[in-house]
């Protein structure tokens, strides 16, 4: 296994700068996720590491060796694409063998057979070895695709949204399996996705990318609990975080006499420099407590605008003045559209972002 480093990488396509001075370090044995919306530059980054794209500037290192001038075949990185690319007329066995047959690898028939069976067993597809690839289910095809990458024991795995074509149930299963596989094998995986649930559940660390630039790198908990900026805060988490434009005064006024928030002491101190200015207040739906009666002065009256019964919980949209808040209640709360309820914010879990830079204040 190996580490991967990107140093000040710039990649342009004509006038468009797809990746803008990217610095990234993936540790040996890490499951590293690159997360971002479509067009952020994630696939381009992956392709640069693979050697399928050449950067205009910067260095790519695998195991501390600069690989810019090495062809993809010589970088010893296995690329798993988004769409299954199995040879449909080959059996599972033949697909798995294929990478080992390349002359450059010089694997003996005995070693090859042994390795194929080994990999098939790890992925629970040993019973399918002699089945044609076009006769497999989606999940089975995905495992064979992964198997074909594993079989060479490459230094690093590069995966480009490999689960996005599977239906929801299968994706759920494969997430846990892939993560466990990585832990058992100790592989270095560089995984790209636009799905924040995938990133959160699988990544040891996540890098959030937007418009060719990295906005934050951290563990799932760090990204979720302490987002560096408003983009990260709104991109990760479902239902999405509530963002309220607030005027900083003696209290924080979202809407006069409708929603005025008094921050906790430590936050208050840091925010004094913003007095008279506007900031963005962020509060996640699960950090809003909804009650049927008003208990204190900071219980804000709201009207229930939409109710989504999700089974395990209800997602409410609460109308308060000009704003709509997303909040969560247990199904036993039984909120009905038109009800007046009271929302209060968990003071330890309220975030503040600068309106100009989008950066986290506190």
């Amino acid at each position, binding site marked *: 296994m190996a580490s991967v480093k990107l140093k000040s990488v710039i990649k342009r396509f004509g006038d468009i700068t797809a990746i803008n001075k990217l610095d990234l370090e993936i540790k040996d044995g890490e499951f590293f996720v690159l997360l971002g*919306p*479509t067009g952020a530059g994630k696939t381009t980054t992956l392709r640069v590491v693979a050697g399928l794209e050449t950067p205009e500037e910067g260095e790519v290192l695998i195991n501390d060796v600069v690989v810019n001038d090495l062809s993809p075949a010589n970088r010893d990185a296995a690329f798993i694409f988004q769409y299954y690319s199995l040879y449909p007329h080959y059996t599972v066995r033949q697909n798995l063998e294929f990478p080992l047959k390349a002359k450059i690898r010089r694997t003996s028939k005995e070693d090859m057979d042994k390795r194929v069976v080994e990999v098939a067993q790890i992925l629970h597809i040993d019973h399918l070895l002699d089945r044609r690839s076009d006769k497999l289910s989606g999940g089975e095809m995905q495992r064979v695709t992964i198997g074909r990458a594993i079989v060479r024991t490459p230094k690093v795995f590069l995966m480009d949204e490999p689960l996005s074509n599977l*239906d*929801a*149930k299968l994706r*759920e299963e494969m*997430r*846990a399996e892939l*993560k*466990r596989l990585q*832990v058992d094998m100790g592989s270095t995986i560089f995984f790209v996705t*636009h*799905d*924040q*649930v995938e990133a*959160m*559940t*699988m990544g040891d660390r996540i890098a959030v990318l937007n418009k060719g630039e990295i906005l934050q790198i951290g563990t*799932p*908990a760090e990204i*979720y609990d302490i987002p560096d900026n408003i983009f990260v805060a*709104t*991109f*990760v*988490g*479902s*239902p*999405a975080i509530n963002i309220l434009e607030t005027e900083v005064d003696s209290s924080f006024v979202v809407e006069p006499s409708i929603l005025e928030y008094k921050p906790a002491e430590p936050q208050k101190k840091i925010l004094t420099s913003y007095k008279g200015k506007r900031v963005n207040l962020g509060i*996640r739906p*699960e950090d809003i407590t909804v009650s049927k009666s008003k208990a204190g002065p900071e219980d804000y009256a709201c009207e229930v*605008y*939409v109710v*989504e*019964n*999700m*089974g*395990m919980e209800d*997602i409410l*949209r609460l109308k308060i003045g000009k704003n709509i808040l997303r909040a969560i209640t247990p*199904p036993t709360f039984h909120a009905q*559209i038109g009800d007046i309820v009271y929302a209060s914010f968990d003071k330890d879990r309220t975030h503040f972002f600068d309106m100009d830079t989008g950066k986290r204040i506190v």
Partner: protein
Amino acid sequence: MARIRLVNIVKRFGDFAAVKKLNLEISDKEFLVLLGPSGCGKTTTLRSIAGLETVDEGEIWVDDIKVNDVRASERDIAFVFQLYALYPHLTAYENIAFPLKAQGEPTKSIKMKVEQVAKFLQIEHILKRKPGALSGGDMQRVALGRAMVRRPKAFLMDEPIGTLDARFREEMRAELKRLHLDIGATTVYVTHDQVEAMSMGDRIAIMNLGELQQVGTPMEVYNHPANLFVANFIGSPGMNFTDCKYIREANGTPAVEFVSSHLDMRIPPQYEKKISEKYEEGKELVLGIRPEDITVRSERIDGALQAEVYVVEPLGPNNIIDIKIGNNILKARSPASFKPKIGGAIWFKFDIDRIHLFDKKTGEAII
């Protein structure tokens, strides 16, 4: 008024029966979701209601009119395709006006109807723009406006928000739900995404392999799934299943024994009678339990069994802990702060009042 009734519908494509003896009643003003995996027959059913497919057997009724032989264009039902199918060369106004213009309506009348719809959907300010200059949300409203302007009896929607990115989909779900409330028209909505179905449906009709599995409110299908398919399909993650056998413990207490680990668990007292009367010892069952109904701890607690931590999946507000018992892997929900070591020991307990039992052979729910 638009009550839609499907009576013994069968639709075949050659030898393949896409829809098999379907019976469904949709009430006036209801938002009914047709939910199921790819190939289950939901789109075929929707297209049959629209008149885009002709059924081989059975009857389709809209209010008191049998519409089997009525052309799609005359059924007074608006089909909303993927929401980005707006005419790119026409303005928002012209897109909405299109169905009326096509019917030869006078310009003055068209103007009135389009402006009325635009006001309702709050898109008056973008009427002069072309789709290329509109946000996704506005495009959705224009598409809805185009469907609404003829004041159809019902709306049929075929996975309209499937291609949008996750955050946008979340917003559109709530918007569509609210719009449905305000518009008050019967809507039949097709999706493979159970989160969408739970969020939006007044009732959900779950299909698999051409057959209706269950119809009910989101809470009904979540808390009382009729069979294994529904139990697993609804909920993310879906319900956990483990094979077991009906046994009687030494003292005669009805219980279930897990096949993979030979541990046993008492049947909830309130169901003891029902099960002991109906089944013989040795009957193969499947025990179902949802992730949020499994408690996990890092130390042994009263009544808990031991397992191995297989994987930890942080979701943000809470975690999913995959636990391995014998050959079985179950998913349990835990607070975000609980981060056990992979491969380590863990103790788990089921909420007895929340277990489900299914007949292994038929898949039907017993309790």
